């Protein structure tokens, strides 16, 4: 991909894809950094919010939700919460998630709280809190967790990517045989959710039927200098949080 050199993006979380030698070195270097940070961050976290259930009005729970979502989706927190700006002097959980005019993060938090039939949302938020310095560690902890948490995590990624809700139980059923070809039912959460789907931005496009671009953009590559900066997908993908 000549136009989207991988070097322009942050590292990927899994070491599975064949990469140029220089890129592998960079990943190892990053992984090392992450390990050190994670070790330093091992400290007991108050579990009060977990016990009481996730609370959309708790800034700590919202920050944990954003960290979890950013890690699982592989995007920056600011792509999920456009008004978030990091204060590096404070613990990430004590920061202000911000309020933006669209605020889809609050819709999603509430939706998950209301639709989580696995009762694992609190557990996932706790994983995010415990591993808040490392997206890679969040992913590892989710993958090491039980099926209820793992499939809810997949529902959450799909929600951010597509604006649609896939029931964790349906995902689990269709994942039972790897490589299954099957219809998986889903519902569109709202018009807003559809138009905020991240996958379109990740692939350099826009939700079908919802574009802020101008006449003729399609005859140029994404991220052409003639197109507005806010529509650029450069820097969306990242393995590091926040």
């Amino acid at each position, binding site marked *: 991909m000549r136009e989207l050199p*991988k070097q322009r993006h942050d590292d990927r979380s899994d070491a599975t894809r064949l990469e140029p030698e220089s890129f592998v070195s960079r990943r190892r270097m990053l992984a090392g950094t992450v390990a050190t940070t994670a070790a330093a961050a091992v400290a007991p976290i108050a579990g009060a919010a977990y016990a009481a259930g996730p609370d959309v009005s708790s800034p700590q729970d919202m920050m944990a939700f954003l960290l979890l979502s950013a890690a699982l989706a592989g995007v920056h927190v600011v792509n999920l919460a456009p008004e978030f700006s990091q204060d590096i002097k404070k613990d990430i959980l004590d920061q202000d998630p911000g309020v933006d005019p669209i605020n889809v993060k609050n819709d999603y938090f509430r939706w998950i709280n209301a639709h989580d039939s696995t009762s694992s949302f609190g557990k996932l938020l706790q994983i995010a809190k415990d591993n808040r310095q490392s997206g890679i560690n969040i992913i590892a902890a989710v993958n090491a967790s039980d099926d209820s948490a793992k499939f809810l995590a997949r529902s959450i990624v799909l929600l951010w990517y*597509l604006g649609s809700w896939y029931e964790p139980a349906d995902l689990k059923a269709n994942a039972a045989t790897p*490589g299954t070809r099957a219809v998986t039912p889903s519902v569109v959460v709202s018009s807003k959710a559809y138009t905020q789907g991240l996958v379109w931005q990740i692939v*350099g496009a826009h939700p079908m039927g919802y574009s802020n671009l101008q006449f003729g953009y399609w*005859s140029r590559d994404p991220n052409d200098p003639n197109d507005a900066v806010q529509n650029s997908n450069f820097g969306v993908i990242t393995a590091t949080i926040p």
Partner: protein
Amino acid sequence: MTDNCIECDVAIIGSGFAGSLIAKELSQTPPIRGNRLRVVVLEAGAGVQPNINDYLKRFYTASIKVPESPYPPALTEPNGKLIGPANIAAGRPTSRTLSHSSWKDLKQAYLDQTDSKLPFKSTYERLAGGTSHWLGQTPRLVPHDFQMSMYRKDLPDWPINYKTLSPYYDKAEAELGVSGDVEEQSFCDISFSKGYTYPMPRIPPSVFDQDASNALAQLTADETNFLGMGKPVTALRLRSLPAARNSQPYRNRRACAGNTNCIPICPIQAKYDPTITLSEATNGGAKLIDHAVANEILVENNLVSGINFITYKGDAGPQTGTGCIKAKVYVIAANGIETPRLLLMSKNGGRTPNGVANSSDMVGRNLMDHPQYVTWGLLPPSSKPAYPYRGPLITSAIGDLCDGPFRATRAAFRVSFGNEGWNFVVGGGAFGADPHVTTLDFVNGMNSSRLNTRAVSQLASDNSALFGAGLAETLRDLISRQFRIAFACEQDPDPINRVTLSTVTDALNLPRPKIAYDISDYTKQGIVTAVRLKRLIFKKLGATKLDFTERAAGDPAGFDEKIDDQLEQLTYGGAGHVMGTYRMGDPKTSVVDSWQRSHDHQNLYLVGSGTFPTVGTANPTLTLSALALRTAENIVAFFKSHA
């Protein structure tokens, strides 16, 4: 018929392209002997909405986004259960009822296709504006499309030729607002009036159009010999498609912003739809009556004397009353299935047992579409990505292969290059649409897209289930390489493919349309040649091993053909082009003349693509619009000569 009928000069049944254009032309005609023409339009479905917000919301929140998604009547109850066609007042065929389990199920499908060998796969809407969900492409037919007997003696010629229709094409292009380029459209003997330019400059080609153009710029005559063009073909040129889509502000509508959603709804109305013309007609004095289903055309002394209709409330009824309309001239503009249905329902107490306008027995016969062979693949990792899901759904096509001596033995086709990736093709459509299907595959370790293999994804394992940047990078890489190419084939007329009346009814107790349909060997051979051309194009794109074209299990349109000693599993899609069912020609073998006036009844016009004797390969809307404008002229002349 009751005594208190609506009285007017011209009654128009249907408010789609043809009906709206005629309504506008007549309502804006200067007074004839001091009187303006009084025009009344009956629409079976919902009226013109104050804005399109409700339609957009329906689209955004639809979990299955198909052509009918934005438009009423609702397809399902709030709990997701399908609403059966017996419970809808003005029903219509939908893409959701074309699966192997639904297409012949009369409880699910509006059309009774129990007699079809292969499914008629096109759908339509019934609401003000008619075909608002159209793609917006407006190529002209080529001159030989009007004279198919030169290739096959058994095919009818049109009673009108390209040269006669050409000024009406000009007029239709102005009315619809077409962006195009005269030089680019001058192929296959198409000529334009002297000094003609399209109303707006052409729509620029997409990134993939440009890449495909480069890949097909140099070919050898040997490579393309199979096309049977009768001359060497050493390049295939992608031409920007003319489209009723603004390339600059036009008649108070914005320029296209590339929302990639022409079908089913343009969120900014940069694509023309007939509600625009319809509103101009009603502003000019025409009266639109919605939720009014015409159910009988009355005939006295060989002239139409009135039309009865049923009114209803809501999406599904109930019936609220009946009415009648009396006019001097009647225009039926209800599309290629609903028009013959109405003609056949009109039995006048047994005086017209075969229906109205049917002395030729051709009403409802020769149903045609442009069966589409659709293919999809990935560009190789070494190529620049196609960058799909950007721009209008289609911006370029190969038109030059639509005419030649091969038409003696096989159907012609046009080749369109999609800008919507695998949105409607992934997995043969069996598992949903992309980008959803591919995203779900890589989140949940599934493989509906067939992309989740090591060979394709270059990941460490098959059936990967990913989180994080690895997921995002994989999706970006694979989805930005998706492309789709479709071959829309000509279908030849066959009287056996026909619309009749079913024994099953809708919520107004009117018989639903019954369809008998099949695809001829002539059309299948067109698809066979399309397969060969697909192989060549994929090869030139470096995508031979990245061809994901497949026929979904149980596809009712499936048929097999031997190509180079290999049995290929083939299928086709509908183009939404409902044509041929009340064709024009001579009185013995056709229903209307070149003015689209009934041979049997002097004051009855039947308009729309049902009048096409043969269908060429161009999208029919521009041609039916040009014919409608010519008909409007004829109606005005009628009033001028009949005081």
